[in-house]
Structures are given as C-alpha cells and as structure tokens.
C-alpha cells in the first residue's frame, strides 16, 4: 500500500515537473494592453554593452534615471557587458532556463539565433505601430522619434523575415586610419578613396630596410604596414565590393568560392612578406599605428578615440608614441567610384514575457533609448552616429560636429572625422543576410584570413590544395557543412545544454527509472501475495 502511495507521489512529482517545463516554453501570445499600468510595480532587466568606457556607462544610468522619473512604477536593473559575445552566450543560456532579460543590446545576427527558441524575441511591428505607445505615440511621456525619423537603412537592418525584431541603437562602420606622414615620406600621395592596390603597394614599399635591419620609413625594428582588426569584416567587404557571393536571404552559404580563393592568395602574398597582419596575430592596430609601426590601421569608427598621436585613449607608453598626421579614410575599395562598407553597431531587442505590461514597459524603455538626449550623448563618446535623423539634424549635434578639433577629448578631430565618414557614406553601407547560422558564417570568413596569414608566417605554402583543405576545415569547425542553416533555421547553434537543463533531464530519467523499477517490483512481488 505504502508503495502505491509512493508511486502516485512520484508520478505527481514528475507530472508537475513536466508541466513546469511546458509552462516555460509555451508563453501565451502578446496582447497589446490598452493602457500602461502606472500603479503596480514593474521590474525590467536591461543587458547593455559598453566599450569599457565610463561615459557610456554613465549615459545608460542617466537613461534609466530619466526613464524611471517619467514612469516611477517601472524599475530598470542594468547588467553591463564589455563584449557582445558574452551577451550572446548568456542570452543563449538564459533562453533555455526562461530567464532572458527584458531589454538587450544585441546584433541582428544574434537575434536570428535567439529566434530558434520558441517565444523569445518580441516582433516589434505591432508595438511600433501602436498609436498610443508606438514610435512617437501620443501617450508617450517623452519625445520619441516617429518611424520615418529613424534612418531607414538602419531600421531595415533590424528586419528579419517579415518582422522587425529590434530597433537600431547606435551605428558605426570601419575606417582606415592612415599615417599620412609616412605615406608621403614613401613618395606617395593619398588618393581621394583608398584602393586595395594602393594599400598593398605602399605597404610593400614600407618594408624596405636599412643595413642595420631597421625599417627605412620609421627607423625602428618593427613595421607592420597594414593591420586589420576585424578580419571577418575584411573578407565580407572584399566580397561585397567584388560583387562576389557570400550568403543569401535563404541562408545558403556561398562564401567558399573562387573570388574568396583569390582574396586569400593576395592576403597570403602580403602576409608572407610581412606587409600585412591582423589583430589576433599581432595586437591592436591602434598600438602599432601610434608607435609609428603601422601605416594603414583598419578598425571600427567606434575605436577612433584610440587612433592618432594625440589620441585621448592610449595603451602604450608615452615615450613610444610618435608624432604623425592621421587621415581617416574609407576602408580600401576595389571600385573607388562605388565605395562599399559594412554597417555595424548595436541594436536593441526586447524579450517575450508572460506579463504583457512587462513587455510594454520594456518597449517603452527601448524606445526611450532613441530620444535625442541619449542618442547624442552616446554618439559623442566614440565614433558612433545617432540612428535617428531627429538627433542627427538637431542643433546640438550639428554644433558638436562643427567643433571638431577644438579639444582633444569630446571634440577629438579623428573621432569626429570618423563620424562624418559614416554619415557621409550611410547610403554606401550594407549588412549581410541574417539567418540562424549567419553569426557562424561571419566568424568563418574571418578565420580564413587568420589561418592563411598564420600559415605563411609559418613558412607553409598557400596554394589551391591548402585553401581547399582550409575550406573543409573551417566548414567543419563552424558547422557550415551540415546543411539546414536557413532563414527559418532551427539548426544547432544553441551550444551545449546548460547545467540546469542537464540536471533536469537527469532527474527526469532517474524518476522514470524509479517508477519502472517500482512497477516491475510490484508485479514480481504480487504473485507471492
């Protein structure tokens, strides 16, 4: 009798656990509240990213403070990251446990992976269009932009399939920070738009050495003329400029093609001579540039405050910094008449929650991040541009741009030149198709350049056979050879199961073993009764 009770108890327990699991996964559909609850406390969690920059952190806190003043019953708790990758990993882990944040700084590539979990990221179309609480809605307590005031290229980047899943928060691109002094010392004049041919030619010339082994151009023992920070961007932009395939909207992987092979062979040629290296292999481009050990340093415009001999942020000893004139240019191009550069920078998404009021509060906070005060203040911290025309065209922002070079902090000229470059080329920017697996494809494209560069430095021969092997290796490493990555991809990418999930599965299995054992035992014992 006791055993039957125990069996029943275990069954109830297991049923309860199963129900608990089920409840986490099947959130009910969101229903737009007619009215924001301004009486009961609502708590939202915001995961943000900064560039190890105190001012950026302070701006987030200021945004929270300002928002909470307007909506005193909503409390925003922030968790700060300095790395998008860490946010991505933590979100993936928390999707499994149903503990995602409410609002999160992210990249559309990452959202595509988040979407493989059910009921995760909120589609924003309904929220954006709501007359009361939508973009610039009539019931908002702050001056938010209307949809048309968000730069359309940037908003478009947040569209995945048929819906918007994020709002753009800040935008940047890459720039080539050039030691103009050395270029001219080598007998060249900078063209209006940098080309790959020009960069390679000057870089090779810069390798000429004196009899004592020092480089003629800088008199030092170190010179890496061309350093690229983000080699995934290098490959993606090269392919785009060449009109070569990379991927498509259906999630097909097109990276491993003949143009890619040609790009890799060129990289190998200049990697072998020592004219080219990467951040992962040698270090931060800014450190080499500022020490007079690099001529073409490609990095994000959001890293512009580290660039130049008078940079407000430096990581090398003061006595290592050399004096030179810095030019901020577009990344090298294959066709200078039609420059193309990648659009990057953080977006903000909100996660589905069972409480519609919590979702609405999250949406209001995300929208608050697009107000002029936040947009302008944040963009001034680095080479970011505001994502709204409302902020870009404001008097305050125009005055900021006009004051370029008036000091070496807020108005540091290299930073404002980088910002101007991004704004001037807004229509020349592009993003790659977003699908489940696009983040891995991006990593793979950079890995090709890293591996080829490392190989030639290690005296290996980079030929067709090497590159074909490399393609196979990289496809396997990033699971690009498994097929099934698609726009609606439900494949992989969620990584290993988190500990809690493993524990739960183990517990379930143990419970079932116990149940079956008890049932069998009952059966075996019964005849004896």
């Amino acid at each position, binding site marked *: 009798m006791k055993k039957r009770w125990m069996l029943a108890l275990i069954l109830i327990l297991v049923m309860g656990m199963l129900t608990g699991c089920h409840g986490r996964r099947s959130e009910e559909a969101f229903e737009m509240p007619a009215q924001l609850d301004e009486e009961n406390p609502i708590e939202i969690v915001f995961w943000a990213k*900064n560039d*190890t920059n*105190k001012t950026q*952190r302070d701006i987030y806190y200021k945004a929270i403070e300002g928002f909470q003043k307007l909506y005193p019953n909503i409390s925003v708790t922030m968790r*700060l990251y*300095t790395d998008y990758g860490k946010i991505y990993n933590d979100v993936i882990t928390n999707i499994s446990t149903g503990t995602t944040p409410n609002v999160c700084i992210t990249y559309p590539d990452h959202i595509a992976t988040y979407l493989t979990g059910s009921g995760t990221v909120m589609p924003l179309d309904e929220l954006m269009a709501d007359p009361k609480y939508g973009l610039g809605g009539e019931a908002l307590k702050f001056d938010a932009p209307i949809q048309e005031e968000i730069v359309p290229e940037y908003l478009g980047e947040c569209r995945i399939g048929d819906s918007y899943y994020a709002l753009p928060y800040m935008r940047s691109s890459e720039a080539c920070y050039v030691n103009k002094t050395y270029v001219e010392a080598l007998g060249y004049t900078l063209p209006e738009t940098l080309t790959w041919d020009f960069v390679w030619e000057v870089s090779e010339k810069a390798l000429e050495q004196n009899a004592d082994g020092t480089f003629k151009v800088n008199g030092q023992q170190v010179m890496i003329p061309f350093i690229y920070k983000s080699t995934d961007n290098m490959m993606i932009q090269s392919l785009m400029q060449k009109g070569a395939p990379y991927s498509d909207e259906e999630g097909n992987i097109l990276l491993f093609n003949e143009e890619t092979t040609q790009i890799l062979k060129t990289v190998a040629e200049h990697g072998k001579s020592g004219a080219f290296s990467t951040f992962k*292999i*040698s*270090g*931060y481009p800014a*450190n080499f540039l500022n020490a007079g050990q690099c001529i073409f340093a490609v990095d994000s415009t959001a890293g512009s405050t580290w660039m130049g001999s008078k940079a407000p942020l430096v*990581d*090398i*000893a003061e006595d*290592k910094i050399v004096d030179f004139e810095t030019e901020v240019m577009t990344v090298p191009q294959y066709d200078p008449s039609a420059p193309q550069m990648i659009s990057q920078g953080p977006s903000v998404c909100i996660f589905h929650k069972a409480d519609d009021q919590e979702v609405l509060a999250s949406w209001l906070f995300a929208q608050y991040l697009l107000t002029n005060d936040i947009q302008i203040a944040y963009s001034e911290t680095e080479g970011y541009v505001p994502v709204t025309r409302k902020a870009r065209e404001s008097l305050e922002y125009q005055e900021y741009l006009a004051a370029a070079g008036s000091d070496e902090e807020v108005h540091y000229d290299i930073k404002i030149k980088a910002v101007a470059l991004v704004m001037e080329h807004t229509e020349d920017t592009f993003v790659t198709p977003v699908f489940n697996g696009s983040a891995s494809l991006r990593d793979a494209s950079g890995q090709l350049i890293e591996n080829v560069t*490392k190989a030639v*430095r*290690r*005296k290996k021969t980079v030929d067709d056979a090497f590159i074909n092997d490399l393609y196979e290796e990289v496809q396997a490493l990033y699971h690009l050879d498994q097929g099934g990555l698609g726009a609606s991809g439900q494949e992989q990418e969620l990584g290993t199961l988190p500990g809690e999930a493993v524990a739960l599965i183990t517990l379930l299995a143990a419970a079932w073993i116990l149940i079956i054992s008890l049932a069998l035992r009952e059966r075996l014992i019964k005849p004896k009764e």
Partner: protein
Amino acid sequence: MKKALALILTMGIALSLAACGNKADDSAKSEGVMTYAEYAAAAVDTEVVVETYVQAKQSWWDNKATIYTQDQEGGYFIYEMACSEEDYNKLTTGTKIKVSGVKAEWSGEYEIAEATFEIEDGNYVATAVDVTDLLGKDELIDRQNQLVSFKDMTVEAVAYKNEEPGDDIYLTLSKDGNSYDFCLEYYLNGSDETLYNLVGGLEAGQTVDVEGFLYWYEGVNPHITKVTVK
C-alpha cells in the same frame, strides 16, 4: 675483510641513491623536448615542444584552455590550448604536461598558441621569485610568465575595467617614484572573492607586497594572484 665489504656496500648504496636522485629529477627533459633556453631562443611562428608544470588556470571555454605553466627554468603562457573540460579538470597546480604548439607573440607577450598537450608523470609547484629589483630593467622580461613577487610597492590607483566590480581590476603601483601597471585578471582570480574585494578596496598610499604571473601587454603587466597589505 668485513670492513672492506662494508665499504664496498656503502659505496654501492651511495651510487644507487645518486642514480635514483637523477631519475627523480623532474627538470630533465624527454627526447625531442626543448629546454627553456631553447624555447626562449626559438623564433616566433616556429613549432615548439616543451615539458612544463601547470601553475594556474586562467580560463576554459569552447574546449580551449588558457593556463600559466612553469618549469624549473622559466615560464610558458599557453593560450587557448585544445582541451576538453574533463582534461581541464585534471590540470591541477603542479601537474606536468607536454605541450606542442607554435610560439607566438601578442603585444609583447610570448605564448604557445594552437597547442595540444598530454599529461605526464611529475609535479612541480613554483615559488614566487622576488623581482622587485628588476623593475624598470631590461632583464625583467627574462622572467616573463613566471610566478614572481614585488615587495614594498606603493598603491597609486585602483580602477575597475568596467568602472564597477565584476571585471578586471587595474592596479597602479609605484616603486622609487616609477609607476607600473598590474592587473587582477577576473578570469584568473574571479572566484577568489577575498582577493577581489581586497584589491578593489586598496587605497592610494598603502604599501603592499604582491605576487603574480609576469604577464606582458605593451610592457610589463603582472597578473596578480596575492596581495599582502603592510
């Protein structure tokens, strides 16, 4: 006769002990393995094979381990070595490992990259060597990646990487009027709350002894593992 026999036996035992002593010398390298001097002399981007001992583990992620190791001659920083989580758990302080990889340099830090390893018999735990007198001198780099100590340093500044607890802590210490950058690497010591709170709470003007691994980033940048406030 007995005396002679006793003498012969004694000599025999002494010789055997000496032979045993050599055999127990963990600093001896296996065939095909570099000495530290050979490793130090090897050019960047060449293949290296070393036998060394785990001194501290910095991180494990995605089947890659980053660890500080050292033998009786010098230190080896092993960056993102291929390593399962199961094997990572076997790497306790002192564990002897044979590492094959490529010597690399990143912002002044010499490391073994793209490494694989196997665990061997043997154990060695390094004690910190006082290198205070080498601060500001070129010879300091010869101690790179070793467990070292600095005595009677003055705290100049303490700053959290992200301006708030939860990440690395940058510590500026001075000696004889010259300042040096130290770092409490969060992944190396993050779980040691006592140390983290102690370093985060240091105030300018305090005198401290510090211990740590002699990491390099655009100059000397020790990763501290122990702090004693005087």
